[in-house]
């Protein structure tokens, strides 16, 4: 069954992205005793950003495991459980905390399958909160997906809406590889954070998958391609809808960072010849540069105009609201970038 078909069947039930994620986990846990969750405050609290809400009540402390603040220890434990055939879902509370456990992530989780010549699988999900926009400062607001995507051996997904979040989580749990499930706090639909209405949306009750490695055309258009991921997709859609009748904007929601759906990017740019990239991660040496290389490796002549990149500039994330929003991708910046590529 295709994603598009499922979307049309989604019906009227509407969930927040947080609820869609926890529902996906619950359904997979009911179906498979090997699935369990561990991390900081994933139990009675339900995850600081709601990713495990309600799970503790249903599954109890033996399968929804609160850990001490020992990210190296419990991510390593997830890896050990996974190599023995279990399917752990481990939460790193903020992606920013990767500094205290990166060895387990990239030297162990990401490499064991390759180092073992394919003999040892690591079927685990490492989920984590990402992103800023609420003045949480330089150590609690980063996206960093490109940092992980730079290193081979991990799949990395970052949904922009509740429907994709559920389907990607189910795919991630069922995948035989380590999958980083990076949810932007701003897409979770949290009651205590300003949100775009797109963070609440229709979600089918039955389990379904959204394939990892497949981008979606979130808004069809023919004049300009806007490639984005996660919360920024919501901003791009707002802009695209606002420009309807004036500029025909095609919004590509990557949904997966690694492996990158290069075909989807090339197909859209082949059609439009104009490209804007919107990424809340740092600008240099990251996803936006990789997307440009995807075009130029194929054929620089696909582009009718220089590419515009609306990304976080190469500064740590500032605290003050005026400073942070100077750095973040906003609708205004996206719209201006679209006008720039259209004029060129």
């Amino acid at each position, binding site marked *: 069954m295709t994603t598009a078909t499922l979307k049309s069947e989604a019906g009227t039930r509407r969930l927040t992205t947080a609820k869609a994620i926890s529902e996906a986990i619950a359904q997979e846990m009911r179906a498979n005793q090997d699935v*369990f969750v561990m991390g900081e405050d994933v139990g009675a609290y339900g995850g600081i950003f709601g990713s495990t809400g309600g799970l503790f009540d249903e599954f109890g402390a033996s399968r929804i495991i609160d*850990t*001490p603040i*020992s990210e*190296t*220890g*419990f*991510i*390593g*434990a*997830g*890896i*050990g*459980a*996974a*190599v*023995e*055939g*279990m399917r*752990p879902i481990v939460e790193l509370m903020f992606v920013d905390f990767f500094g*205290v456990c990166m*060895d*387990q992530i990239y*030297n*162990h989780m990401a490499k*064991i*399958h*390759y*180092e*073992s*010549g*394919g*003999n*040892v*699988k690591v*079927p685990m999900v490492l989920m984590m909160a990402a992103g800023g926009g609420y003045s949480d400062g330089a150590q609690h607001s980063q996206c960093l997906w490109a940092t992980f995507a730079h290193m*081979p*051996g991990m*799949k990395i997904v970052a949904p922009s809406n509740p429907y994709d979040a559920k389907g990607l989580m189910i795919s991630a749990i069922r995948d*035989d*590889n380590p999958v980083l499930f990076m949810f932007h706090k701003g897409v979770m639909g949290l009651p205590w954070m300003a949100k775009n209405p797109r963070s609440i949306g229709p979600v089918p009750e039955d389990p379904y998958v959204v394939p990892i490695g497949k981008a979606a055309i979130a808004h069809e258009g023919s004049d300009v391609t806007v490639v984005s991921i996660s919360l920024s997709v919501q901003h791009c859609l707002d802009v695209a809808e606002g420009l309807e009748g004036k500029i025909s904007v095609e919004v590509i929601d990557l949904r997966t960072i690694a492996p990158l759906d290069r075909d989807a990017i090339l197909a859209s740019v082949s059609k439009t010849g104009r490209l804007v990239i919107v990424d809340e991660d740092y600008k240099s040496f990251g996803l936006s540069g990789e997307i440009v290389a995807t075009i130029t490796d194929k054929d620089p002549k696909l582009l009718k105009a220089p590419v515009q990149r609306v990304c976080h500039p190469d500064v740590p994330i500032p605290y003050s609201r005026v400073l942070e929003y100077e750095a973040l991708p906003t609708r205004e910046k996206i719209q201006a970038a679209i006008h720039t590529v259209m004029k060129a």
Partner: protein
Amino acid sequence: MVTDQMRLDFYKQMVRIRTYEELIKRDYHADKTPAWDIGAGLIPGEMHLSAGQEPVAVGLCANLRDSDAITAPHRPHHLALAKGVDMKAMTAEIFGRASGLSHGKGGHMHLFDPSQHFSCSGIIAEGLPVAVGQAMAFSRRKTENIAVGVAGEGATNQGAFHEALNLAAEWKLPVVFVIEDNDWAISVPKKVSTSVRDNSLRAAAYGIPGARIEGNDVEKIYEATKHAVDQARAGGGPTLLEIHTVRLWGHFEGDAQAYRGAELTAAEAMDPIPLYETRLTAANILNKTSVASIKLEAGKEVEAAIAFAKSSPEPLASDTYQHVFA
């Protein structure tokens, strides 16, 4: 209770491992001339050999089943062989051949044998959390299997060691932590690395049993690890053991060990194999004929493994791109 048959088996296994390390050493250095080049020859790369540490592997693994897990550190050969990892496939891996355990993708610091639940990590102390997770899986599935995390004494100053102990203790997991104290973290001695002279005392910090085993004595190591393994298997939770052993050779091959001085001579006097040979000869378990025969058999087995490795094809260059993902 250690029987005479077990003593004989311990000796044979220690000789087998030592012979392995001696012949790997021989072939490692054989073709790195005229200028010694770490990346050249039939066995390229770093090589950390375990001569002197055989009693730890042999005493420990005599208590383990095929279904028990070990995570080994960067110096893994003795543990792999004692655990039951296939010598031919392991040797082919060290020679970087397609018939190796990982088809040449791992190398000597990354030996993986899922049939023995054996793995290694080249990063100090970082294999210990993985052992905790294996123990977690064994416990959740209500098996009798246990996991053993092995690391050097230098690893006890790493955060991962402490996180692993804390988790294993809190969750009362079937895991045994074995610290091989060979006195040296490459060139930095234990005495300038920590104020804790006996790392097993650190067990008290996590409310678990700890013991230090002196003497590099395979029988004492067998008994101490048996106690810890039995306790873990019975659901009694983790134990921390520090085993004093000896690193007879350099940290890696090519390490001139100028930093060791007279200590090296003292270390060589602690070579466990001649010491055990003397003991077992005095006890009439060994004699000159049986010693010669055991060494001959070990040599044949290792030479056959090396011949298998050398005669195996190298991987295809195109294999580079396989196995990034399952």
